[in-house]
């Protein structure tokens, strides 16, 4: 007897532990195999771009904290860089170093969560991520010292940073920088050649070099596909041209490579941190800039290499105290364009691993 079957539509999310926020995937399945997937956005849309048009340039900084809330420092940095480009504002040397220190600490904190959550999705339930969270805690303590906040920092300012670092910050940072490589080695030994991890991620969810470029992927997703493209190197901003560091890339473009790229990037961030601590000059941390910045009429696009990829701000000024248009180029949203191509043909359990390997933050995708 022939059994008649037909494709079956399943909603994964919006509230599901593996969706890392509120994100829905409408998956069309043939048994366990994914035939098609449609991402559904908007559950975290707060209209941040519209809100920003009603606020002064300085008031927007805390709004940017709420985009990618796992990397608020990077959001702050990208935004203030765009405003400084638009208004032609210079930043004191010490503030530049502090910005780099914060951005690299943030990259490590964000990658720890990204990697930990990915391992969770692969079935290493809760053990690795708890170690990651333990290490991330040290970074959050450092951030708390400089700005009093642990998640939404509001630390950068147009023309510098809000406060100089307190006395206890540098010793604690040095301690962290010294201990972090050992931690990465220790945990990498446990996972690098773990058979289950390899089986779940090697060759799974492949994104070719051409596809990655064509879908505007950025960050670890792009680099894992073999494209050596890191804004810190190809279009250096702030003072990144003064530090020695490598850009890790993958070759296969699979989940495993995306995971490896993030681990290696953490090591490189520690390298940058070491150099920045050594060279940190004394001096002012903020140039004299009015709270009511009034950039000349015009437009500017400022971008940085945030933990999740190219984070850009496109600002249009009409010479008033609020931007005429404020647009965020969100790496999480664009990296998700790749999702469909990566998951079709794989099984439901792989969908979660592939989705986890993109490492997204819905606050930024939905805005």
């Amino acid at each position: 007897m022939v059994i008649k079957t037909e494709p079956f539509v399943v909603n994964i999310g919006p509230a599901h532990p593996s969706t890392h926020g509120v994100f829905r995937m409408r998956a069309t399945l043939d048994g366990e195999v994914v035939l098609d997937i449609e991402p559904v956005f908007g559950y975290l849309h707060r209209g941040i771009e519209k809100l920003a048009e009603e606020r002064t340039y300085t008031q927007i900084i805390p709004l940017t904290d709420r985009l990618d809330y796992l990397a608020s420092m990077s959001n702050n940095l990208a935004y203030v860089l765009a405003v400084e480009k638009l208004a032609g504002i210079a930043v004191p040397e010490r503030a530049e170093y502090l910005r780099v220190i914060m951005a690299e600490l943030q990259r490590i904190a964000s990658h720890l969560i990204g990697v930990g959550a990915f391992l969770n999705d692969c079935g290493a339930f809760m053990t690795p991520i708890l170690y990651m969270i333990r290490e991330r805690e040290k970074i959050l303590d450092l951030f708390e010292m400089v700005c009093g906040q642990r998640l939404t920092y509001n630390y950068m300012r147009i023309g510098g940073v809000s406060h100089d670092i307190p006395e206890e910050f540098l010793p604690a940072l040095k301690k962290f920088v010294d201990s972090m490589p050992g931690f990465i080695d220790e945990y990498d030994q446990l996972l690098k050649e773990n058979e289950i991890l390899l089986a779940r991620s090697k060759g799974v969810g492949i994104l070719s070099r051409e596809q990655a470029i064509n879908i505007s992927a950025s960050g670890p997703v792009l680099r894992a596909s073999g494209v050596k493209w890191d804004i810190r190197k190809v279009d250096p901003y702030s003072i990144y041209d003064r530090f020695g560091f490598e850009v890790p890339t993958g070759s296969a473009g699979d989940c495993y490579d995306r995971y490896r790229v993030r681990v290696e990037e953490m090591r490189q961030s520690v390298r940058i941190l070491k150099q920045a601590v050594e060279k940190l000059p004394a001096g002012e941390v903020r140039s004299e800039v009015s709270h009511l910045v009034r950039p000349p009429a015009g437009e500017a696009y400022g971008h940085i290499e945030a933990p999740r990829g190219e984070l850009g701000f496109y600002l249009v000024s009409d010479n008033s105290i609020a931007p005429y248009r404020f647009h965020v180029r969100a790496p999480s949203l664009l990296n998700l364009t790749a999702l469909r191509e990566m998951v079709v043909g794989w099984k439901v359990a792989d969908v979660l691993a592939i989705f986890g390997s993109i490492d997204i933050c819905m606050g930024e995708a939905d805005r």
Partner: protein
Amino acid sequence: MTVALSGGEIAARLEERFPGSVVESGQDSLLVKSESLRAAAGFLKTAPGLEFDYLTAITGVDYYDYFEVVYQLTSIRHNHSLVVKARCYGRDNPALPSVVGLWKGADFQEREIYDLMGIRFEGHPNLKRIVLWDGFTGYPLRKDYL
């Protein structure tokens, strides 16, 4: 360092290939006629020496008299960039050709501009609202939406 290519030079090359396609050019940007947008984008993506293989971002801006859509293009091969703009007039049914066929990265971004600013992208394979729900009326990022 990503080199911002001169809008004037690219405009001259475009004009040579598609006469009348460029409206004006700036320091690092050029404004193309909306009906020439797809041809110009295809040229920029493949012309030797230009090869803008990476569409960094698309933004829509409402200037009351017209909508301007801004394409930030980058070439990963040559590490240079260019800003291409196109305008569409009228507030009832503004439309531009879609570039999804050239760069898939335009997919969600064009949907977002359609959703929040109400510009239709002709030729987009799945043009529907993305962050707001289907029954929503109005386009919040327009300047006359309060």
